[in-house]
């Protein structure tokens, strides 16, 4: 008995978490998938009606906008957050005297939710109140920054605020990576007379491939989950031009009272998540020879 216990302790210890994950993640995904085949409105109902919800979803122009936005937002957000995070990390790595305070400044947005900063961002990006008006007051009469109110460009302001929040974290990841690069390689390169930018471009950055992967995953998960950001900044507007799948799903479930439709959009979202995450998990966790 004690022997058995001793042998199975690790599994027993893991069990509560696993049970929780199975119920609260996979059980709930299953529940959602099931409900997506029903005509649930205000509250869930469990009579199956086939794929009506998916047909409705496919025909919905708003959902199309939400998916397009996810693509635009996702790509730009990941790209800019990575590039800015990397640049900041490299700049901070040059023996900057005020590194500590600067690092904190770059990192702090991660500490704030958009419920906190939403109003400030809305003002800053609003042409009549924020940057545009400040520049015009300074005498730049033709300065224009009205993306927030332009349905075709509003999604880009969401990118700006999103990058603001997340690039500091990416910077932290890269800085950590830079600090752990083997100094000997760099000294060797310097002895070979390779210039500093070249050293970064061809030696250091390539050696941080795993960090690129980590930050890609963190960022893509943030992009897919992005919700507060849009609600606080644009509320999905102008019109529904900045809707993302998460806000679409939320609107359907809670303000529209169309849970079936919400569940079908959630299921599609989960499929997108799976398509991104599973290859990553596979590459991370496939057995390696030690």
């Amino acid at each position, binding site marked *: 008995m004690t022997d058995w216990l001793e042998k199975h302790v690790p599994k027993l210890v893991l069990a509560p978490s696993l049970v929780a994950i199975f119920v609260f993640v996979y059980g709930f995904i299953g529940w959602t998938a099931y409900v997506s085949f029903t005509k649930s*409105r*205000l*509250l*869930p109902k469990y009579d199956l009606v086939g794929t009506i919800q998916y047909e*409705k979803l496919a*025909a*919905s*122009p*708003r959902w199309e906008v939400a998916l397009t936005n996810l693509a635009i937002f996702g790509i730009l957000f990941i790209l800019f957050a990575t590039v800015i995070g990397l640049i900041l990390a490299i700049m901070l790595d040059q023996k900057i005297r005020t590194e500590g305070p600067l690092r904190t400044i770059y990192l702090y947005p991660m500490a704030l939710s958009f419920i906190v900063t939403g109003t400030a961002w*809305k003002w800053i990006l*609003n*042409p*009549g*109140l924020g940057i545009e008006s400040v520049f015009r007051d300074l005498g730049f009469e033709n300065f224009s920054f*009205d993306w*927030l*109110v*332009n*349905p075709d460009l*509003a999604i880009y302001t969401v990118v700006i605020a999103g990058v603001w929040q997340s690039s500091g974290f990416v910077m932290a990841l890269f800085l950590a990576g830079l600090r752990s690069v083997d100094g000997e390689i760099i000294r060797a390169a310097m002895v070979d007379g390779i210039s500093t930018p070249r050293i970064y471009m061809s030696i250091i950055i390539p050696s941080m491939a795993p960090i690129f992967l980590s930050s890609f995953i963190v960022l893509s998960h943030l992009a897919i989950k992005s919700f507060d950001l849009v*609600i606080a*900044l*644009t*509320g*999905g*507007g*102008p*019109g*529904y*031009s900045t809707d993302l799948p998460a806000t679409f799903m*939320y*609107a*359907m*479930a*809670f*303000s*529209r*009272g*169309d849970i079936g*439709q919400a569940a079908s959009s959630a299921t599609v979202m989960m499929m997108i998540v799976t398509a991104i995450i599973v290859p990553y998990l596979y590459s991370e966790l496939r057995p390696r020879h030690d």
Partner: protein
Amino acid sequence: MKKMLMVSSALALGLATTAAKAEPQAEVLHWWTSGGEAAAVKVLMEEFNANGGTWTDMPVAGGGGDAAMTALRARVLSGNAPTAVQLKGPSIQEWYEEGALGNIQDVADAENWDELLPEAIQYHLKCDGDYCAAPVNIHRIDWIWANASILEDAGIEPPKSWDEFNAAAEKLQGMGILPLAHGGQAWQDATLFEAVVAGLGGTEFYKKALIDLDMDTLKSDKMVEVFDQMRVLRGYVDDNFSGRDWNLATAMVINGEAAFQIMGDWAKGEFIAAGKEPGKDFYCSSPTGGGYLYNVDSFAFFNVDGDDRQAGQKLLAKLTMGKNFQKVFNLNKGSIPARLDVSMDEFDSCGVQSNKDLGTAIEQNALLPSYAHGMALRGAQAGAVTDVVTAHFNSDMSSQEAVEQLAQAVAASQ
């Protein structure tokens, strides 16, 4: 950490034990959280507590009640529904159909609600013929708020139709004055839209289009005209309107940056907070020509366990319809009482006007439930309409195309 857990479970226990006493209990979910609103509801709480009850406040603001609805759904699903919930319009019946609502007919009988409430309003509060919700107020939605001094300088009367409005706006634009302050949020776009539907199309058109969702009406030439007018209105709005909160738009009218705003009667609170007087510093008028777009806030009563909570529902229902609360609340809120026998002496000119128009509208059967504020349509359908309205207003979509999309979206939502 163990200690912490104990503290929190003790807290939960504490809540449970206070609930066990047989005094009337009410946990009230609402989104009246700003200073003025809170003061208005507080009257009800004080009366409730004075009558031996215990009021537990559960405010959830945001998104015009979206966040509160999220919380409500979670609470109902977890079998822990609040005692009373700020609800309105068809969503009351929707919740009833889900089997979530209780019944307060006995209170309504005792207090004679059928006599006191306009019939159109009764309709919203009843579930299968019995009262399941108590009304708090009547908001008028189709108000045009105007800056008095701008209008005087321009020699314009407060507009009473869309033609008048357009003429006035053209004139103001010619003078370099921004005619219309507007906030580009979907619900505000919808507020404009329904005022245009009621004003251009008239009462019957409104009912067919936005209550019955009659396909022929939705596809009619009149509807094309409505979208044309929306496009015209878009021309009267400044470029920075996107995402602007309604109160900032009101402030533009108050500060003389714009002449008009089309908004429900809660906007009056902003004027008054800024020290302005109705009839003197600002005007209120309606473009709907006899129509009356309304929004009735009410408390809906959910199925709850326990005598104390059921007693709480009855007491709350009674007090909500009480004359004193109806008066004080609506004085604070800018709306007018739902029961017809409250004296309007203390109300300002806009309130009195609203009350008078209400009477006329009742007589002429021109009382129109607001679609934009969830009185006319169920959530999914209202949302489908709003999607098209806001997409049209915020892009260069043609009116024809908007009408087609509208018909399509409505059909899909049914």
